[in-house]
């Protein structure tokens, strides 16, 4: 005797809709479990995607040199923001160009300065660098030119300004070729940056870029904040990293007083950290799924004892133990699948909400999570209904019928 699957579904549905309060409660438990898994993984993945994207926008095949030695010798993101024990100099930067595997080198200084034109002024982030910077960072100039190629130690008074600064200082007037004041010096505007150059820590739209030697004069320093080195290819990254470390060490009387990181390493460190975070968060959410499963088991146990007379009747009408088990398991599975689908919808809506609130965060739940969570919900429903189903199937028809 084989039950038709449509009949099973219909019977389960009637059983569930016959007890609306309990059914809604169960759906809610399952939906919260599934929804939180989806939202939390979307959040974790979003954070990871955000950080990865930011680093990728730094440019590819990048090796970054900064002063200070990280204790572990490995990648320590904190070390990037440490104080400077020994200066990195322009000559250090120049020395790094002496390898065929190095495509470009760009020194970098960063400071905060006041720029003004006539009565208008504002504080901006000032970047001091060279013509190489444009290619290394994959920036684009909207209007005019980037810094010209010239001797690295020449403090030529030219500036490339971000489009926002242009708007604020010049308004509708022409900015290219005009002069503006940076600190106590005058610079001629030779280029305007577009908005696409956005990367970690620096918003190019609100920065001005001047030759590194001029920046050092303004900041009254001999040192550099960073040296960015671009390897010729991906395969050259490891070599260039070693080369940079050795070269600077040789120049600094054998002191290993700089940290050289590859963008790859930084990226994969962040990737690892945030990946672990996503997993942890998924684990926590999975616990709520298990709780939902146990709830479902209890509800089905109650359902079985509440419906003992009905199960007895079905037996009297000729239901086999297998059919009774099938009906109970189907009911629990229907419950958990419905709950999971509602949870999935809520979770996806939640992720969408996060994306619209934080447009920079690509908060998408990975598809493997969605599949896993649906699968888990199904398994939970099946697993936790087996015990109640076995109890129901084992009932003697006569004693089951006698109970009301």
């Amino acid at each position, binding site marked *: 005797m084989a039950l038709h699957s449509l009949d099973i579904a219909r019977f389960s549905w009637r059983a569930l809709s016959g007890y609306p309060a309990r059914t809604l409660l169960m759906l809610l438990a399952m939906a919260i479990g599934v929804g939180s898994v989806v939202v939390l993984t979307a959040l974790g993945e979003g954070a990871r995607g955000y950080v990865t994207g930011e680093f990728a926008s730094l440019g590819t095949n990048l090796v970054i040199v900064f002063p200070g030695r990280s204790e572990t010798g490995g990648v320590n993101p904190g070390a990037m923001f440490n104080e400077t024990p020994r200066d990195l100099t322009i000559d250090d930067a120049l020395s790094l160009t002496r390898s065929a595997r190095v495509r470009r080198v760009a020194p970098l200084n960063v400071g905060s300065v006041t720029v003004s034109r006539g009565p208008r002024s504002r504080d901006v982030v000032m970047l001091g660098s060279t013509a190489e910077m444009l290619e290394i960072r994959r920036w684009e100039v909207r209007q005019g030119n980037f810094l010209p190629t010239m001797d690295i130690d020449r403090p030529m008074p030219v500036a490339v300004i971000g489009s926002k600064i242009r708007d604020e200082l010049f308004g509708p007037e022409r900015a290219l070729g005009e002069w503006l004041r940076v600190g106590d010096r005058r610079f001629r505007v030779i280029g305007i940056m577009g908005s696409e150059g956005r990367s970690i820590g620096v918003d190019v739209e609100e920065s001005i870029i001047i030759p590194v030697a001029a920046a050092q004069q303004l900041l009254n320093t001999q040192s550099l904040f960073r040296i960015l080195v671009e390897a010729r290819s991906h395969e050259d990254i490891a070599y260039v990293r070693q080369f940079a470390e050795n070269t600077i060490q040789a120049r600094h009387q054998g002191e290993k007083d700089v940290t050289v990181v590859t963008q790859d390493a930084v990226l994969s460190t962040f990737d690892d950290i945030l990946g672990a975070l996503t997993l942890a968060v998924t684990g926590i959410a999975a616990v709520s799924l298990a709780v939902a499963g146990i709830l479902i088991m209890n509800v089905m146990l109650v359902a079985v004892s509440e419906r003992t007379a009905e199960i007895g009747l079905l*037996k009297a*009408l*000729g*239901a086999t*133990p297998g059919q009774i088990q099938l009906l109970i398991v189907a009911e629990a599975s229907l419950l958990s699948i419905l709950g999971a689908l509602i949870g999935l919808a809520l979770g996806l809506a939640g992720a969408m909400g996060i994306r619209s609130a934080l447009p920079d965060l690509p908060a998408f739940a990975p598809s493997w999570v969605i599949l896993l969570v649906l699968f888990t919900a199904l398994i939970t429903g099946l697993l936790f209904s087996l015990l109640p189903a076995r109890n129901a199937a084992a009932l003697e*028809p*006569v004693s089951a019928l006698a109970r009301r």
Partner: protein
Amino acid sequence: MRELATTAMIELSHIDRHFQVGDQLVKALDDVSLHIDRGEYISIMGPSGSGKSTLLNLLGLLDQPTAGTYFLDEVDVTSLDDGQQAHLRNKAIGFVFQMFHLVPRLTAAENVELPLVLAGVPVEERKRLIEPSLEALGIAERAHHKPDQLSGGQRQRVAIARATVMQPGVLLADEPTGNLDHKSGEDVIAILEGLVDQGITLIMVTHDMDMGRRATRQLRMMDGRLDQDLRTSNHGPS
């Protein structure tokens, strides 16, 4: 008598059904032997607690004997497994209860449909079977009502429709009029007797002497034993 055994529908030999209640042994059925032919109309009477329901449950495979053998249609049913017994309950036996036992969230038609669903009968054929069944019992226009929208008599008629929709050979009824007023009870008995006329074997437990006497064979039970077995030639109102 031996050759008659092959035409017997039901053959009970030395059936015991004992219950252990605390340290007391209750002999609900005590060495019951019974031979029932196809198409008989049997009433079972007796005082409360004399074992009538226990006997009927046993005949309906809702309960197992402690000892003895039970042949139904020449099959030793006590040796069958749960699945095979379920199969027999579905196909060969109809059961009508005093409390109706309808599923409250299902309509009359859906209640009648249950045995067909369990048997895996295709949907179109179910319709073909249910409609005339409800029609014959005068509840066709109540097909889509839930049990709580039906009177007691109507509920019992739905229950009879459900018990007979698989066209079983034997119909067991445990005080089918016990929860009905006199008029509805009369109607239900008339319906059951109509089924007997169509060849079904009816075994009915009743408290009502008048109703019991309408059967062509009247069994009396006392303390778990068959105490009297009376045959009359014809059934009908006396």
